[in-house]
């Protein structure tokens, strides 16, 4: 496929438009990075397609014209690697994230994960483990902390992390487990505790170049830019951890 790409008259001096499918949770950080990158590379236009990692993966595997995939779920990413859409060499586990316990802003009853088993805790929301990575990690962490069996009956499964946030923001659940980066998006919830790193498999945000990319060189350049120190700092500002 490398030879095929070289046949492409890669926009030498002309405009290049890169399409990047990225997990919705990366949006704010990516907006900042996009601005600075386009300043530095006026010939490049970055088009972001934000969505759920699962949808993004299905789109790519059905041939969507994407240059770069930035996933919030390692398993979805691995599916594309397995399909041969992404080569290991052109991918990297770029970011990490932390799992936090959040409660409504004014709540005072819950102070730690173990408080989830208290009598007066009604509902706890996590993402649906089968489809929301944060939910899967949350379930795993609760299991490791031996709280799962006790709280399972109180769990409300959400379609995505945003939904967990909405529930907590509106006080309709007593607590929720989300990524730290998501919790920072709203000031109507407060972070009570962070799950220890050893309670769950590491949270990884892999990024990789799609083999079918028609702008391989420009993509590669951006891919490398993402790994630069100043970029990583931006991500860290938004709560991500460098991998």
């Amino acid at each position, binding site marked *: 496929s490398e030879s095929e790409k070289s046949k492409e008259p890669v926009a030498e001096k002309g405009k290049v438009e890169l399409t990047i499918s990225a997990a919705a949770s990366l949006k704010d950080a990516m907006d900042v990075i996009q601005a600075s990158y386009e300043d530095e590379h006026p010939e490049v236009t970055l088009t972001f397609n934000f969505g759920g990692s699962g949808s993004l993966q299905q789109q790519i595997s059905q041939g969507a014209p994407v240059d770069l995939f930035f996933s919030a779920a390692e398993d979805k990413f691995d599916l594309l690697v397995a399909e041969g859409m992404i080569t290991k060499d052109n991918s990297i586990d770029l970011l990490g994230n932390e799992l936090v316990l959040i409660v409504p802003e004014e709540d005072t009853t819950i102070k730690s994960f173990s408080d989830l088993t208290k009598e007066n805790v009604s509902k706890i929301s996590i993402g649906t483990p089968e489809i929301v990575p944060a939910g899967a990690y949350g379930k795993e962490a609760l299991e490791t902390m031996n709280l799962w069996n006790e709280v399972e009956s109180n769990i409300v*499964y959400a379609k995505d992390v945003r939904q967990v946030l909405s529930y907590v923001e509106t006080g309709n659940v007593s607590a929720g487990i989300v990524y730290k980066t998501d919790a920072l998006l709203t000031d109507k919830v407060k972070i009570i505790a962070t799950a220890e790193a050893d309670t769950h498999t590491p949270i990884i945000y892999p990024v990789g170049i799609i083999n079918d990319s028609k702008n391989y060189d420009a993509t590669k350049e951006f891919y490398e830019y993402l790994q630069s120190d100043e970029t990583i700092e931006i991500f860290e500002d938004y709560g991500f951890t460098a991998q």
Partner: protein
Amino acid sequence: MDSLLNSIFSEAFLSPIWVSLKIAIIAGIIVILIGTVAARFFARKQFRGKAVIETLLMLPMVLPPTVVGFFLIVIFGKNSWAGQAITWLFDRPIIFTWWAAVIAAIVVAFPLMYQSAKSGFLAMDRDIENAARVDGASEWKIFFFISIPLASKALISGSILSFARALGEFGATLMFAGNIPGETQTLPIAIYIAIDSGNMVMAWLWVIAIVTLSFLMLLAVRVKE
């Protein structure tokens, strides 16, 4: 083959079907009733601000379902007036219950019934209602014995659309009623999760189930054509 049969008769497979059926039927009936009444009312009355009210009724169609769901949890949530009233009445909040799914389905299906029914009431020959009026029928009796049968084609189409919409309701339900297996996990939610998590066998079985339900519904109203 055996495993397929096992899946089909498993609680896990059947549960979303029952949940969906129950919710769609109850929501469908409620929507058909209030949609028909509201449509007849609005079809016959002209007043200022009618367009504004009708726009509000149409809102659930144009907003993303998740946003509709978000409004619902705000309106019926525990900090709202309605939410507190419900908690006080039933000793528990409505959110995450089976009734929440019914409400979500009602809200999204209502505009379909309303618009269809209204077109039926507008299109009909008013002199037949007049004949009933002369025959001594009260407005309610005219509504039941004359207007509804005369607008039946439009009402049936509205019912089909509303029931289908209630059966297929997904985004708002997921937000307002949550995804609680056996309680609020409807067929569309189950299908979504199955596909997203790559469980294509279950996904297809459920798709077949929902297609069958739709087919049976269409057959049921067919007699009237």
